[in-house]
């Protein structure tokens, strides 16, 4: 019995230690482009992490105008994240942003990222603009982050250049 207790304490501390050791920081630079269109609405924007099965693992950011009516136009986000979520969410949801460059930083202190088990993930960015288009970009990474690395991607219309900087 005593041995069992010791073993279980040991396992717990090991688990805890390994959990606490999972560190990393995601630095995301995104560019929302200026579009020369007759009717411009700021895009809805969602940023989340999917595991290898495509399941939502960390809901990091959502910019929308407070109207839930069009949220399902971010099709993947709606299926994988949105329809399960109760909005707004502190620290995740915010107002839509106009054209410009934005820097977002998430580290292991983030309550969503801290839930990630070690493994391969995709950072997923989806935007949808009223009377405009929809775009989705994936950027793979491994968690925890052991080596600093920079990845770049670019949208076609709705998103400009995206730089993902991974820091241990």
């Amino acid at each position: 019995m005593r041995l069992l207790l010791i073993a279980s304490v040991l396992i717990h501390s090991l688990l805890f230690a390994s959990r606490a050791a999972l560190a990393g920081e995601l630095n995301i630079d995104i560019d929302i482009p200026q579009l020369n269109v007759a009717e411009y609405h700021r895009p809805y924007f969602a940023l989340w992490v999917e595991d290898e099965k495509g399941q939502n693992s960390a809901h990091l950011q959502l910019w929308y105008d407070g109207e839930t009516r069009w949220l399902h136009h971010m099709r993947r986000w709606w299926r994988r994240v949105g329809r399960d979520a109760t909005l707004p969410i502190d620290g995740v949801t915010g107002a839509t942003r106009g054209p410009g460059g934005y820097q977002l930083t998430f580290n292991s202190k983030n309550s969503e990222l801290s839930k990630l088990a070690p493994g391969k993930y995709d950072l997923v960015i989806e935007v949808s603009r009223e009377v405009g288009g929809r775009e989705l970009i994936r950027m793979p990474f491994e968690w925890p982050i052991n080596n600093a690395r920079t990845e770049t991607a670019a949208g076609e219309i709705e998103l400009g250049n995206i730089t993902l900087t991974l820091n241990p």
Partner: protein
Amino acid sequence: MNILRKTLPAAVLSLLLIPTLGCAHMRWLVPSNTVLSEPGAVTFDASISNNVFFPERAFPIDGVTVIDPEGNRVEVSNTLKGMRRSVFDIEAEKEGTYRVAIGASFYFIRYKNKNGERGGWRGDEAGLNAALKEAKDNADGDIQVTESHSRLETFVTVGQPSVETLKPLGRGLELKASTHPNDLYAGETAHFTFLLNGEPANGLTVSVIAGGTRYRNNTSARTFTTDKTGNVAIDWQQAGMYLLEVEAEGKSSTKGVKRRDSYIVTLEVLPE
């Protein structure tokens, strides 16, 4: 139904009906929206046409039933019987999946009279005996009687899809959806079971037609056959609004009468 027993030999009745599956005159019930991210109104068109989903002749909506995610009936509003389509609206106020269906049951009688002209009747059970008497008086030879039950259905979800309204009713031909009908995506496979009076329906042909047939040279219908457990696996190749039809033929509980069950569902397949 002694009258039938006397006048309609079973061998004659077995020759009666031509399957209508895959033929012209498709019946359909199409929603304006299948996915809502907040409560809102949804409008429906019901029509009979050769081109999916372009209306030609209004489909009657007297038998419409709308069930909300908690299992309660919902009133429809703004009903319209147009020249080419019937219309109604619902207010989808609750989170979850709404089931929208139009059920119809009819009897058909067909025969030839003494001058070789075709006679026929279509109506409900209440008028059947009188119609049969008339047929008997006029017919020269066989009288064909068919009992027909059809169910047109579609689903609408506010927020997270729910399963309360998907429970089989246990009567007629119906869908038991292992894959939620409002969770269909191009590139994925849906698993559906078809039940006839609550039992798995083996060997039925399931026809799947994408909307927009007007812009194609043919319907490009895909067909699947239910296995022993009534299952089919449908791999959705493209996003779009689809019409799925299944038909079963068998014997009515009334001796000597044929029974035909049709189940027709409109399904939206989304791109992800």
